[in-house]
């Protein structure tokens, strides 16, 4: 069997004709296998969804219980003669790589993944395969994410030097928010962390899955209570910074936690006063080392900066092709 016969790109996303299913489709389909709960990978309205239990629960939190007609959450199984298994991707809670296997050929679709320290989800597990499908969100050699604890150190240094300012950190609701809190706790920050209402449900879900986030309080200051946010950490989705919500904080310092903060022009564009380079994706070294470690027969590159990773594969003498899948955002959710 040729790899293309097992899995190939279509306008809806990756499609397996043998098993008649899609992986992370961007439009409603009959059967979808979902790598993780970020909105551009996990959409509502499919007939049947197969994902990890956590991803299914996250989808239910975001879209309501009726997000799909049918659900399945086995770690491994079979559809139409294709063996399917889920393996941790280290991206966010519940994130998985999906391995599909038939006719002696195994393809691993890694979805979004990372290799850096994250106390809030299971670490990436390399799975030997013939074709490895990798993302390339940070697929340029200038992306080198520093030690996340060192970045937390920069946030703590700012809190120490500017103790009268509320430190508002822009984070995505799924994954980044909880990881940032867990990293703060690992660095010894014991004060309550204040969270925007949009983060509450997913934070509570992480906690009920046994991830200790310490005291969390709602950042819903009634008028006049602004002073209590001085020197505190407040997390919010980036969209809240431009809204009137942000006006309640004293002398706010706007920080963002994202891999894009590495590039100054991007950080400036965001209006960040403090850019924390904390990403839930692989940096360049993470991508290239993972490909070397798995050493697949062929590399397929999905969303992001395919061009540079293609060039690297060429230098390394690795067979590679870009899939040009559409519908995935730069750093979603």
């Amino acid at each position: 069997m040729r790899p293309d016969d097992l899995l190939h790109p279509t306008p809806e996303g990756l499609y397996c004709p043998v098993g008649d299913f899609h992986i992370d489709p961007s439009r409603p389909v009959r059967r979808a296998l979902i790598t993780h709960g970020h909105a551009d990978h996990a959409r509502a309205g499919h007939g049947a969804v197969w994902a990890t239990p956590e991803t299914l629960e996250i989808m239910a939190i975001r879209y309501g219980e009726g997000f799909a007609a049918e659900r399945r959450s086995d770690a491994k199984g079979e559809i139409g003669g294709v063996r399917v298994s889920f393996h941790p991707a280290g991206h966010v809670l519940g994130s998985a790589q999906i391995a599909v296997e038939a006719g002696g050929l195994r393809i691993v679709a890694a979805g979004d993944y990372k290799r850096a320290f994250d106390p809030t989800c299971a670490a990436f597990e390399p799975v030997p395969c013939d074709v490895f499908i990798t993302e390339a969100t940070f697929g340029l050699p200038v992306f080198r994410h520093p030690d996340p604890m060192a970045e937390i150190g920069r946030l703590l240094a700012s809190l120490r030097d500017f103790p009268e300012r509320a430190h508002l950190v822009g984070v995505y609701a799924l994954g980044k928010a909880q990881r940032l809190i867990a990293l703060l706790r690992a660095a010894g920050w014991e004060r309550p962390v204040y969270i925007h209402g949009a983060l509450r449900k997913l934070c509570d879900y992480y906690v009920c899955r046994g991830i200790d986030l310490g005291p969390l309080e709602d950042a819903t200051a009634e008028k006049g209570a602004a002073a209590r946010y001085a020197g505190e950490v407040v997390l919010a989705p980036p969209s809240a910074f431009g809204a009137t919500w942000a006006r309640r904080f004293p002398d706010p310092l706007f920080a963002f936690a994202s891999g894009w903060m590495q590039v100054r022009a991007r950080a400036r564009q965001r209006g960040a006063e403090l850019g924390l380079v904390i990403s839930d994706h692989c940096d360049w070294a993470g991508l290239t080392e993972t490909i070397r470690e798995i050493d697949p027969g062929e590399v397929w590159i999905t969303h992001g900066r395919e061009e540079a990773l293609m060039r690297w594969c060429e230098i390394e003498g690795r067979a590679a092709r870009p899939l040009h899948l559409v519908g995935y955002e730069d750093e979603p959710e």
Partner: protein
Amino acid sequence: MRAFAALMDRLAFTPGRKEKLRAIRLHLDRTPDPCRGWALAALTGGLELRTVTPALLRRLAAERTDEALFALSYDYVGDLAETVSLIWPGEGDGAEPPRLSDVVEKLRRAGRAEAPALVSGLLDRLAPPERYALVKLATGGLRVGVSARLAKQAAAEWGGVEAAEIEELWHGLAPPYPELFAWLTGGEKPAAAGRAPFRPVMLATPFEARDREAAEPADFAAEWKWDGVRVQAVSDRGERRLYTRTGEDISPAFPDLVAAMAFEGALDGELLVRAEGDVGAFNDLQQRLNRKTAPKALMARLPAVLRAYDILRAGAEDLRPCGYAERRERLGAFVAALDPERFDLSPEIPFESWEALDTLRSAPPHPAIEGVMLKRLESPYLAGRPKGPWFKWKREPHLIDAVLMYAQRGHGKRSSFYSDYTFGVWDGETLAPVGKAYFGFTDEELKKIDRFVRANTVERFGPVRSVRAEPDFGLVLEVAFEGLAASSRHRSGVAMRFPRIARLRWDKPPREADRLETLKAMIETAGPRT
């Protein structure tokens, strides 16, 4: 080097002045000598190293990586120093990075031949954030978002002295300023460092209506305010310097005037040029500014002159504590002894009442006059901008009605407000942007404009929104500005000087806003100054 790199980062991204001052103070406090001295030199523009050129740096980096990967990366990042610092292979040697002072010493000493190897070696040793600071240092491109003045202010606050004291000493100090730091940490104040020092200038505040009510005309002298560059001419035992009001030494651009400074003392005045026998326009003067040397033909065509306002020092005598009236008398006698081709007195304007002066002010006798200065007769010469002794009473600003086109989110306290506005006037059927303003309105008005912007957004580009601006729908802003010049850099062909929002004209339909032709015609009357 690590702390210095962190400071650079903080200053580059912190919009608030107060926070920038604190960041510098903390750095001076936590960093030992001589590193903090070099940091201060870097912040005040006193460290213009040119150890390597950007082209060489690019070549070094491309040698260490793949050419195609480098090109893709540079294309994405857009800044060479940043690209190099991030793409350079390795994470550094993991050891404690070298001290800033060691790095600066090495960069300063390196000759052309050894510079490439030195910079490569340092890039190998350092981690990416420090590499960025290194590259900026080594290429002399260290613009960090603070002024020299602010850095000195921070040093003064940290050492518990007056910023003016540091300014006065500054020209006699050399980095890493050991005498300065000895003084700021409790030692002796450096004895008059260097000859012909700059003395902080005295500035005026606007003459508001309430000042007019409180002030007695008889207590003040009035003189014309000339549209040149305020300077301080200091001649001290053979050393002659011409400083701008911020203490920048511009002597090399004006050797003709410096040659005529045959006196011992310090004068405060307006630097002007003569064009065809008359006082030249600001445009003429501009041809002589920002130069390292002055071509002979240019000096002959536009000779530099000083119109004296005040005297700070005569011989060894410090006149600053004397009252203005006394200084003015001394000034008259002092200038009378100088070359009349190069030096003259700014004439005093006799007046009886504010009304009478107002009449004179609105029709000044020369186009290079931008208003009147009022000086309290008894006022000593004080550094800074004290409120009360000196006022500037400018010609009324020019007003136009323009239409709000784009709004951008502000910084700091204004981060959640659309507070920076681009406005335009009609050019045929479309609006041509003619300027940007971000002050002149009250907090209440800011809230209203913000609401308007949010409710009428057409498109978003990052922090910028375009808003509805149609002949029958939009927000008209009455914009006040000080001057207007023809400009090839602006699409509209005009550049506005000091625009601000004077009034919100919610009542006015955009179709009644001004037209570009009107603005172009105003270039004549609003002065050729940019």
